[in-house]
């Protein structure tokens, strides 16, 4: 029953779990937390992309989740462990309503409208003082300490990043589990089919609108959940960080990894794009140039992303083996 794939996965999880014990520098742990968040966001992009939806509003839903959780815990006094899932539910509801309208618009309309939505959300967060205006919200509460069996309790402070890392890891693995469950089900096959040939999928009885809306809602809710985590981790929210610029960064992470690899691609892409600027000592102001260059290189030379190269080698090395994508 224990396939090779299963063993690899367990290995990866163990390595990820032990990472902060090896890399003790809190700044690097912060980087890995951001890698995790960005990877999950990139996964939501690919989820929608599969069904033919190019979403320019991912950061907007990330922001909705963040602000919702911040509001719930600060204005309504909810404990963080309650506001986290509650914010996800709020994001899901908003995604359902907005999504119904956006998905109906069709391919090109969807792109434009999600872009508009991305700008509008930033405007809303910045204009209304209840959201803290363009200055943003500061001092968002950290999650309350939780008891860990045999170890004691885990407290979340601004100083030690480790508990946040493990929380992020837990959430990320949960999201990957949920995504994988959907992808390997008939829903995942339907998404794939719709993305490959919408007309054919329709003629086989697939309701394009329903499946696309489902992908949109799941993707946006996951983004929102990561946002609510981010709010209580980072402690500060500034409306500007939730605009289409952030979304485009997320796109690059996904494309760099390879859009045909819905889970692994985003991890690779976000790892590289988050860590490489560090090693190259690229400062924050110059980072957009780095991202832009990567974008151009990708479009010109590597549209299938880095993991797309592995397919190429597979095809060249073993001409007798079949190279079809198996639906699993």
């Amino acid at each position: 029953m224990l396939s090779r794939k299963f063993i690899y996965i367990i290995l990866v999880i163990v390595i990820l779990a032990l990472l902060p014990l090896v890399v003790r520098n809190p700044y690097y742990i912060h980087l890995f937390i951001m890698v995790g968040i960005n990877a999950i966001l990139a996964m939501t992009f690919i989820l929608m992309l599969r069904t033919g939806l190019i979403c320019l509003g991912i950061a907007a839903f990330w922001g909705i989740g963040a602000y919702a959780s911040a509001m719930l815990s600060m204005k309504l006094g909810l404990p963080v462990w309650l506001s986290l899932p509650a914010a996800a539910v709020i994001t899901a509801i908003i995604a359902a309503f907005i999504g119904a309208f956006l998905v109906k618009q069709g391919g090109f309309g969807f792109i434009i409208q999600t872009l508009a939505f991305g700008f509008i959300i930033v405007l809303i967060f910045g204009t209304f003082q209840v959201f803290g205006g363009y200055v943003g919200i500061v001092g968002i509460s950290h999650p309350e300490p939780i008891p860990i069996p045999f170890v004691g309790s885990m407290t979340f402070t601004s100083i030690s990043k480790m508990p946040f890392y493990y929380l992020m890891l837990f959430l990320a693995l949960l999201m990957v589990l949920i995504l994988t469950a959907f992808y390997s089900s008939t829903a995942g096959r339907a998404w794939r089919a719709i993305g490959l040939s919408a007309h054919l999928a329709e003629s086989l009885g697939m309701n394009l609108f329903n499946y696309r809306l489902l992908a949109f809602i799941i993707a946006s809710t996951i983004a929102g959940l990561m946002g609510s985590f981010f709010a209580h981790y980072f402690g500060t929210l500034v409306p500007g960080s939730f605009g289409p610029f952030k979304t485009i960064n997320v796109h690059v992470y996904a494309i760099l990894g390879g859009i045909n690899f819905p889970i692994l691609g985003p991890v690779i892409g976000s790892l590289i794009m988050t860590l490489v600027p560090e090693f190259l000592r690229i400062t924050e102001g110059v980072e957009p140039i780095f991202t832009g260059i990567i974008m151009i290189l990708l479009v010109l030379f590597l549209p299938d992303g880095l993991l797309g190269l592995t397919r190429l080698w597979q095809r060249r090395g073993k001409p007798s083996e079949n190279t079809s994508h198996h639906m699993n």
Partner: protein
Amino acid sequence: MLEAIKLTKYFGGLAAVNELNLIVNQNEILGLIGPNGAGKTTFFNVVSGFFPPTSGRVLFEGRDISQLEAHDIAHRGISRTFQASTLFMKLSVLDNVFTGYHMSYRTGFLKRVLHTPLARKEEEGFKQKALETLKFMGMASLKDELAANLPHGYQRTLGIAMALATNPKLLLLDEPATGMNLNEKKAVIDLIRRIRDMGITIILVEHDMKVVMDLCDRIIVLNFGQKIAEGLPEEIKSNREVVEAYLGKEESKNAA
């Protein structure tokens, strides 16, 4: 089984289908022929729900399906193939057919996402059925081949296999024999006969007259979106108007 009543479809100012009245009987193979642009594929597109009609109605098994969307019409039991080789190119042949069983799942959506044993069993069952369908078509050996790598003839039959997987009552075949050599055409003719023997009603759009005359119980001829002739193959062969419709196009082609 299927009835079109004064069916009309305008694209801008052009009536692709113009007040068409048409009846399809159960378990027959009905041939739909006519020069290019006669409205045959538009008729298919309207019946299968890809275009709403401008006016008129389509009745299937007595019920009005005119305003239904394509996926709903598929659920009602009407399937089609496409003129171009429309397949899931990046998937294997088996996966293409397997996708055709999408509508047939009985287990609930949530159960399928949670991968309950029941759901998994059903999935395995459909994988088996997909293999059976491929065997029925004589394509079992190609099951792992990428759809994009198939020769043209097999791509057409794969399209038919997928439409079959949906367990249709009515099958719309859009030029299934196009681009096939003589042997492939013989195989397709045999295949369509076997499909009809399964109890399925078939509407066949085809340009190859030999195929049409060989297969069809009845033939309807369209030109400029209207029915210009209807009857048994022998009658249509000798129908002056039909010959003119085709020859007329031939002559204008030669003159141009």
